[in-house]
């Protein structure tokens, strides 16, 4: 029987993830590649990865899967903490956190402290969500791209969860591994879980909404994320949902609908440059990283002066005479 606390953990996790992600987005500037923006072809590549990786995880040995997940966790945690902690601390923190995770999984299950393993893993996943979402959003991923991605994921999640055994097999395969990409909201075998990817999409949508359409859109997106999580919690608590459920079937259409609404009301979304110029992020001097920002007018531009006649300025000509 799922306890109310565990059920409440679902919207709480999404709330915390969204708040952390948005706070990081506002205060920290990640280092993006100097050239390149996200395009729809990148979404296609991500979709291919989403489809193939679970199949790989199901068929690879558990040790290999855990190692791959562990290395990815270290990389992303180090990347996320990089702008915040000085020197080698990000690397040390990432490796230390990973080692702790492995040690906890190796020693604590079966003891009274087994809950520590899931809590620690969830904390690492929160850091992952914050880092990955900010990397995407701050590297120029658009609200349009996320909405299209969400639509594609809706179809995939529906098929892979309800019509194919993919998601169920994946969950049973990785749930007890260290670095498992699922938030586990309890320590009993029937604890509520929500996938890392689902939380990631909800947080990413919030960030790109803020960037593309402003704070109000961000609040709407965040509210939708919490509402989806709350609806899932209620459905689980009342027995409406039993077993594995494709979260994107709820979240995806909500994201798409919001995007269409924002597009209709506000037109094309802002670029990252417009977002920065709108002053909605913190002053660069207060950011934990403040890369130099060139004036949008371009190098060395002289202030524009009203055009005059094609000949010399009449006032000056009169003066010279």
């Amino acid at each position, binding site marked *: 029987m799922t306890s109310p606390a565990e059920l409440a953990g679902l919207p709480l996790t999404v709330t915390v993830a969204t708040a952390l992600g948005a706070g990081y987005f506002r205060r920290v500037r990640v280092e993006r590649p100097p*050239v390149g923006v*996200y395009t729809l072809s990148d979404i296609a590549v991500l979709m291919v990865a989403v489809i193939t990786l679970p199949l790989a995880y199901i068929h690879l040995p558990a040790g290999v899967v855990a190692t791959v997940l562990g290395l990815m966790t270290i990389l992303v945690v180090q990347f996320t903490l990089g702008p915040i902690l000085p020197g080698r601390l990000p690397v040390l923190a990432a490796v230390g956190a990973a080692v702790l995770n492995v040690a906890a999984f190796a020693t604590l299950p079966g003891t009274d402290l087994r809950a520590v393993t899931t809590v620690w893993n969830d904390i690492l996943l929160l850091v992952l969500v914050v880092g990955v979402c900010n990397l995407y959003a701050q590297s120029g991923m658009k609200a349009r791209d996320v909405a299209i991605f969400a639509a594609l994921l809706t179809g995939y999640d529906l098929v892979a969860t309800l019509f194919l055994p993919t998601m169920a097999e994946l969950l049973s395969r990785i749930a007890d591994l260290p670095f498992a990409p699922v938030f586990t909201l309890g320590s009993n075998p029937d604890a509520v879980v929500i996938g890392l990817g689902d939380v990631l999409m909800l947080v990413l949508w919030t960030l790109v909404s803020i960037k593309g359409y402003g704070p109000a859109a961000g609040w709407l997106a965040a509210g939708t994320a919490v509402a989806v999580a709350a609806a899932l919690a209620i459905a689980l608590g009342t027995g409406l949902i039993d077993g594995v459920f494709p979260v994107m079937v709820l979240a995806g259409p909500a994201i798409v609908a919001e995007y269409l609404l924002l597009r209709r009301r506000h037109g094309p979304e802002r670029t990252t440059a417009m977002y920065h110029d709108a002053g909605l992020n913190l002053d660069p001097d207060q950011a934990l990283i403040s890369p130099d920002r060139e004036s949008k007018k371009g190098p060395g*531009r002289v202030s524009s002066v009203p055009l005059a006649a094609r000949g010399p300025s009449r006032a000056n000509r009169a003066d010279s005479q």
Partner: protein
Amino acid sequence: MLGTALVQLHHGFALMSGRRLRVRDVERLVTDIAATRAEFGSSADLAAARGASLSAQDRRPIDDRRLRRLARMAYDGTAYYRRRFDEAGLTPQRLSLDTLADLPITPKESLRDMPEAFVNRHAQPCYRAETTGTTGPPTAVWFSRYEADLATALTAVSFLIDYGLGTEDVIQLCLSSRATFGIHCLTRAAALIGAASSSLGLVDPEQTLSRLAGTARLAGKRPQPTLLVTYSSYLGLLVDAGERLGHTAGDFGLRQIMCGGEIVTDGLRRRAERLFGARLVETYGMTEVSPANGQHCTRGHLHFDPEQGATEVLSLDGARPAMPGEVGVLTFTPAFPYRETTLLLRLFSGDVVRRLPPGKLDCELAGLPATSRLLGKRSFVRELAGHLVTPRDVLELVEGDPAALLPGRWAVEESTEGLILYVLGRADQAGRAGLADRIQQRGVEQGLPLRRVVVSDRPDQLPPTTPVRADLREPTFRANRPDPVRPAHCELVVPA
């Protein structure tokens, strides 16, 4: 993003392995940079990255490999270098940056006298580019379509990163109409980034000023040219004419002026930036070694990217490397894959610079090797009483005076008591008054062995002055008819 990363990986692999570049990779880079700027508003990160480079030590194996490949191509494919290698008893496979000095320099005269002897027989030459020939008969250089397309794409990258140009910009070229290769690359590069361009040639400065001050309402474009590309001497003509006609910065929409081909003096820069209200960017390049070029940093150094080839500074006689602080001649070996048609090893360019003293540079391009700014042509360098006088020394004196006629036209004669400097001055006495004394005084303050300064408004009273590209004036049929005056804010009225 991922596609960009793959293209850059492929491009980087081609560079590291010394293979021919894929032009569409560079063109894709242009598109990606433009998209990045559209999204993020600037390419400052890229501009900073261009100042970085592998360390000389890390680059050495790559550069040696590319040099050997170039040497093999030159030996196998060109009559000139097959003979030179055989005469020197060298084999291409043994050539390296350390042994490059064993290969004799290639005088510019050799390229000028027999350009086809330098053309790789395995290449497909398409363009015959000629230099303007201001200091002698023009030199012909053959390029292939690949080289032209690559130079165009690299120019487009520079437009985006170094000049911050975009689709709304309008580029006005004022170059010799015979500089077809350069004009071809510049106009196509403009098209690649979506900017507009127009080539006017070296016509009367009044016509050019009229074009720069005029407006043309095109959707998505600035109404006036935003970038002027021209030679220093022609810019001087424009500045002089513009000041005379009473123009001010408000008449123009220029943001930047790309100026090169000749010495750019501080005096010219000051007056040009004041007149046009635009930033002057000094460039350095030679048709013979294109697309290799030099970049100026804010500290006044001239930097060369080893990626595009080896650059040496040799003594004025070309016999040895110049010592730190010594004046020497730039000597280029443009690298494959940037060059495959007219192959040049150790081209003794005749362009004089000063080798910088040893020590770490602190400019934004510190990662690239550097020299002083261009000091002039070797043939115009004078040595008197142990003092080396370069054309820049003289031109800075002449053009540094705010009343000087631009471009500075000068000649020097040596006497036992020092140099006699002849300067072409303005037609009116008031314009010439005091100029000779001021130039003389500044020259003495700078330690130049100036005996006398003569200013005259009559060219026939002066010794032949140094030729300038502005003299390559191109007549037009409109020379005797002034352009009709058009109101500045004329709107096109579309009939109902």
